[in-house]
């Protein structure tokens, strides 16, 4: 829910509740006061009638006055001074509320019950108009506050939304830093400066991390070169026994793995540092063919059934990266296909796809392109190959997708 709608919801609900309560209370209070007024009038009337009857010893002539009805009813010999107010509904042509006062009056030894009634029409009218006014005030205030909130809040919160959209555009590791416009509001300025600080902090940490990978990999090259060269010298020793040779072979293998790992980490860090900026028009089909040629011995050795269909396609990307992309995808396919398995290579106008018959089940597509992901296989591979392929596609503006069906892994690069 947006901040506005949340705020409006609370605002409207509470305003309406308060107005409803207030109008109800107002209605009853007003009615009470107005009826009190009418009752006072009735009492005055009573006093007038009593005064008249005492003075003249007879009942006054009922005078037809608008909104007022006086009745005299002879009432036996009851000597009680009955007196009561009540609200009645007159059964006239127009149903209207009346306020009636009934009291007893002795006139010439005869008791009369006197009923004085006054119409409440005026009162009701006042109440109606009061209610009407308050309801329309409520509506007007609601509409006004809604509009004001919308406009004012929107402009008040604008810096917040600006910062938000700036943050949404921001990607760690890209040179562009979000620009926060200064505002006149303290909270937003604090927010912006806090964001700016944490961003530059994150950015410098990230930079350091990247430099670390880069430097660490570089620094590892020389010791690796030393180990490898020592082994190369060691195996010249003619006194080396078979057992020792096996040990040396294991050491060679370990050095090779480490050198490859290092090579891949360096490549990744260079891709991330955007050090492959030169783009060229590449005949992708020719490159694929060259790779197939390069790998031909291996393809042949493992007796793969190879299906190739290539259309002449020109792709704009960095030449080194194109090479590395194909190396990684082909290496991956060749490594994970059993002897006699099937490999299909297809290239058309906007996509390149490579599939191989699977050794194992579906790979986890969410983790597949992660660094050091090893789909449950030997520790022999470092698990960076597909991550490199993914990064290359990213920086080249391509997308790479993995699919699995019918025991076949499919990798599709869409240009």
């Amino acid at each position: 829910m947006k901040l506005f709608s949340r705020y409006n919801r609370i605002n409207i609900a509470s305003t309406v509740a308060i107005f409803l309560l207030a109008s109800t209370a107002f209605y009853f209070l007003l009615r009470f006061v107005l009826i009190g007024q009418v009752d006072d009038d009735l009492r005055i009337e009573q006093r007038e009638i009593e005064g008249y009857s005492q003075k003249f010893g007879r009942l006054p002539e009922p005078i037809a006055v608008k909104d007022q009805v006086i009745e005299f009813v002879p009432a036996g010999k009851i000597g009680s001074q009955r007196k009561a107010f009540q609200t009645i509904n007159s059964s006239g042509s127009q149903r209207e509320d009346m306020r009636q006062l009934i009291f007893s009056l002795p006139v010439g030894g005869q008791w009369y019950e006197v009923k004085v009634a006054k119409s409440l029409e005026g009162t009701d009218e006042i109440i109606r108009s009061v209610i009407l006014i308050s309801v329309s005030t409520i509506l007007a205030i609601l509409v006004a506050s809604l509009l004001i909130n919308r406009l004012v809040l929107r402009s008040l919160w604008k810096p917040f939304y600006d910062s938000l959209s700036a943050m949404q555009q921001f990607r760690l590791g890209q040179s562009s830093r979000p620009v926060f416009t200064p505002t006149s509001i303290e909270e937003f300025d604090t927010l912006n400066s806090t964001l700016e600080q944490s961003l530059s902090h994150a950015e410098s940490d990230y930079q350091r991390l990247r430099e670390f990978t880069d430097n660490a990999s570089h620094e590892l090259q020389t010791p690796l070169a030393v180990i490898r060269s020592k082994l190369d010298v060691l195996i010249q020793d003619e006194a080396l026994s078979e057992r020792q040779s096996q040990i040396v072979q294991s050491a060679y293998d370990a050095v090779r793995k480490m050198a490859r790992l290092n090579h891949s980490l360096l490549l990744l860090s260079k891709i991330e540092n955007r050090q492959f900026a030169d783009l060229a028009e590449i005949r992708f089909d020719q490159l694929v063919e060259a790779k197939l040629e390069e790998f031909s011995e291996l393809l042949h050795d493992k007796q793969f059934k190879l299906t190739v269909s290539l259309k002449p396609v020109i792709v704009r990307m960095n030449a080194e990266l194109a090479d590395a992309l194909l190396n990684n995808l082909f290496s991956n396919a060749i490594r994970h296909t059993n002897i006699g398995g099937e490999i299909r290579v297809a290239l058309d106008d906007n996509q390149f796809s490579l599939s191989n018959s699977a050794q194992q089940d579906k790979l986890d597509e969410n983790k597949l392109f992660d660094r050091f992901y090893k789909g449950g296989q030997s520790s022999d591979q470092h698990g960076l190959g597909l991550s490199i392929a993914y990064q290359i596609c990213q920086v080249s503006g391509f997308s790479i997708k993995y699919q699995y069906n019918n025991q076949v892994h499919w990798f599709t690069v869409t240009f």
Partner: protein
Amino acid sequence: MKILVIEDEQQLSESISAYLNNEHFICETVFDFHSAIEKISLYDYACIILDISLPGGSGLDILKELKSNNKADGVLIISAKNSLDDKILGLKTGADDYLTKPFHLPELAARVDAIIRRKSFDGRSLVRFDEIQLDLNEKLVKVDNKIVDLTRKEYDLLLYFISNKNRVISKGAIAEHLWGDNMDLADNYDFIYTHIKNLRKKLIQAGSADYIKSVYGMGYKFSAANQPK
């Protein structure tokens, strides 16, 4: 022939000298920029193995110094930096070749050999090993003047062996020489075996002696038959 190794990592420098020193080559070693400059101004070398990052200066400046003095020494750059730009820069500055650490010593030897061959034979590019003769321009191999029909890979392999004769070459070094370091498939080296077997068979059929020997499944050695293993 003298080779100068300019490399600040002494252990690596030692290995290089130990591997390259033989009846043809003598290695001299220097470990920093200034002694390197001194050496190259005083002597001529058949080949200089040059590290780029040195205490006291950059290897590229040594290279520039060599070129400005019109020295004909061949130069092989060995660098921890593996990027096309560095490679191109090195070669443009006048290096003959560029090798990235960590390299295999047989690879280094083959590159040095190639540089020296290019420098000294001046086009008359024939390599001989007993009855085997390689024409580097034509990429032709003859045994007793009979042409042996080799594939590209077999030819590369033979030249590699001859550049590293009488030395044991690990299978990893062979794989990397033939397929480059882009290929991350050397989990098993069975495919090398096929190539070596074919090369050996073709040479023997053409009448050469059996020079290629397997060393405990760890590597191969190319040496004259009468020599001890």
